[in-house]
């Protein structure tokens, strides 16, 4: 009889802790946004009414999209190169990619302050070469957030893709070649279609990551270019506006879930055709 109870005994502590310290707090900040004596959407209506708020949301989504695309463009060839490299090189390269991934994001964002600041490396080079007469303002712009985020998430995309690409049987590419496809065609017609699931997984991670990241927008964007996460922080800690913070929080959660399901849905549609084939 005790047998039946065991699984429940094992999961209960975790369950309780999560409910009390994750669900409950979430509910406590979100509930008041819907209910203040009566059930209402007014807080959300007010939020979406403000062009300032819409701008922030739009900026967040836009940057997330751009960052995702860049990580795909840069990450896919890199991951493919690593996946097809011989064993020694592969572990070395993976180690190199892993290192930034495990380094604190403050450090990684700080790196770009050094590069993009008015006295930063890029400006000094451009001035020295004579390309420009005055330093360009690159820091505290959307551009800075974008490049900082690409920098942050590229290793993630690469590691995700390497895993998938490794599974593409070398023999399939060889088969394509024996059928007359030169190496580039073989890549485009065989590898690319088969790597789409991996690209989708990576994109989900990068997109939602950029959407919700805090450090990079804070350090590289400043208060003029807020993203949803820094906006939340400002409302919560600086302005003490719990209501607004709750609204933002729910929108962030909702967006994350919607995006994840969207990508998963696309993956499932494509998977019907491709998927895992082990003869």
């Amino acid at each position: 009889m005790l047998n039946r109870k065991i699984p429940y005994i094992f999961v209960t502590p975790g369950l309780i802790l999560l409910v009390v310290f994750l669900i409950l707090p979430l509910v406590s900040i979100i509930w008041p946004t819907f209910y203040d004596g009566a059930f209402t959407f007014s807080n959300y209506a007010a939020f979406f009414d403000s062009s300032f708020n819409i701008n922030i949301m739009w900026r967040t989504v836009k940057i997330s999209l751009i960052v995702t695309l860049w990580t795909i463009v840069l990450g896919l060839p890199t991951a493919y190169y690593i996946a097809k490299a011989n064993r020694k090189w592969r572990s070395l390269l993976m180690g190199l990619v892993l290192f930034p991934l495990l380094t604190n994001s403050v450090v990684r964002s700080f790196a770009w302050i050094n590069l993009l600041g008015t006295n930063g490396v890029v400006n000094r080079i451009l001035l020295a070469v004579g390309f420009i007469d005055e330093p360009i303002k690159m820091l505290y712009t959307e551009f800075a957030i974008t490049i900082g985020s690409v920098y942050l998430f590229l290793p993630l995309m690469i590691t995700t893709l390497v895993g998938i690409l490794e599974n593409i049987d070398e023999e399939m590419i060889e088969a394509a070649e024996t059928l007359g496809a030169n190496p580039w065609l073989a890549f485009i017609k065989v590898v690319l279609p088969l790597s789409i699931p991996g690209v989708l997984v990576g994109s989900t991670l990068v997109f939602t990551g950029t959407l919700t990241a805090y450090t990079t927008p804070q350090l590289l964007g400043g208060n003029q270019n807020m993203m949803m996460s820094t906006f939340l922080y400002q409302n919560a800690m600086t302005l003490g506006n719990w209501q607004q913070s709750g609204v933002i929080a729910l929108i962030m959660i909702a967006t994350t879930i919607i995006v994840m399901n969207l990508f998963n849905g696309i993956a499932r549609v494509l998977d019907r055709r491709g998927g895992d084939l082990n003869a």
Partner: protein
Amino acid sequence: MAFVDLKDIRVSYDTKQDVLKDLNLSINKGELVSLLGPSGCGKTTTLRVIAGLIEPNDGEFNVDEENLTKVPVHKRNFGMVFQSYALFPHLTIFENVAFGLKMRKENKTIIKNKVMQMLEVTGLAEFSNRYPKQLSGGQRQRVALARALVIEPKLLLLDEPLSNLDAKLRISMRMEIKRIQRSLGITTVFVTHDQEECFSISDKVAVMNNGVIEQFDSPEEIYAFPKTEFVARFIGFENFITLNKLGEESYLAEDGSKFYSTAKTISNADKVKGTIRPDDIQIIENSENLDNTLSGEALVRTFLGKSYQYEVKTALGHLLVNDESLRTYQTGEQVTLYLNPAKLILV
């Protein structure tokens, strides 16, 4: 020059040992040649050199009098069936088979006709719109074959195509492959580690060991007259006795008994190994001290169905003997063995 010619091919990885050294192989047009050997013998490497997936460090490769050694894979026009079949999971069966024709930029109608015809011939027409993962192992194998053949290749290359199938399917598929090969008259190279499979369908067999071809002959020739100890062991010879040359055709064993062989032999060495199949050793009545006889003690008897097999301990080692007389000999019983000189192979 033969239709396919490999001359002095050498392949080595990472400057360690040579995987293939001084490999020479000639294949005539329309022949089905198998590369047979244990894993690591170099048979797959040889096939991949032919396919162009590996560039040899030394040597020349010619097909139809054309030097193809430096020609890249996608220009060689050889159809290849991989061990894993390597079907494209994201394409339908039709699209898989059509792939090679698409690469050759053939006209759409022509492609459709050729593909559908090939699918009819291989019995796959009803699956043309399905995806590889919806097909069974045997069906996928046929798709791989269809895909390789539809491009009307100069050579057909098969890398252990049957090893992933169950026993019954393996037998029916190998006959299918032979039938198609014969009817198309296409020169074929077939890699396998299964001796029975190889012997049943090949015109010629190259038995390989450690990067070298030990014997290249018809299956009948290899079966009856293996040329080296390796080949003999590989095809099922169990008994080996050391012999020293005595005269023209006679040899002396370690225990002083005399042996001679009337089987074809090319051995001029002073020291050879005599080998003989268990079926070709007879248990005879008391020895009249003939040549080619040996006495020993029966150790273990097992029943094989049409004969009893005995492990016999002799002065020259333990020998396996198959006796069809069905007269059972007991453990410890002394027996006299006669090694048929016509079947005693010297390697």
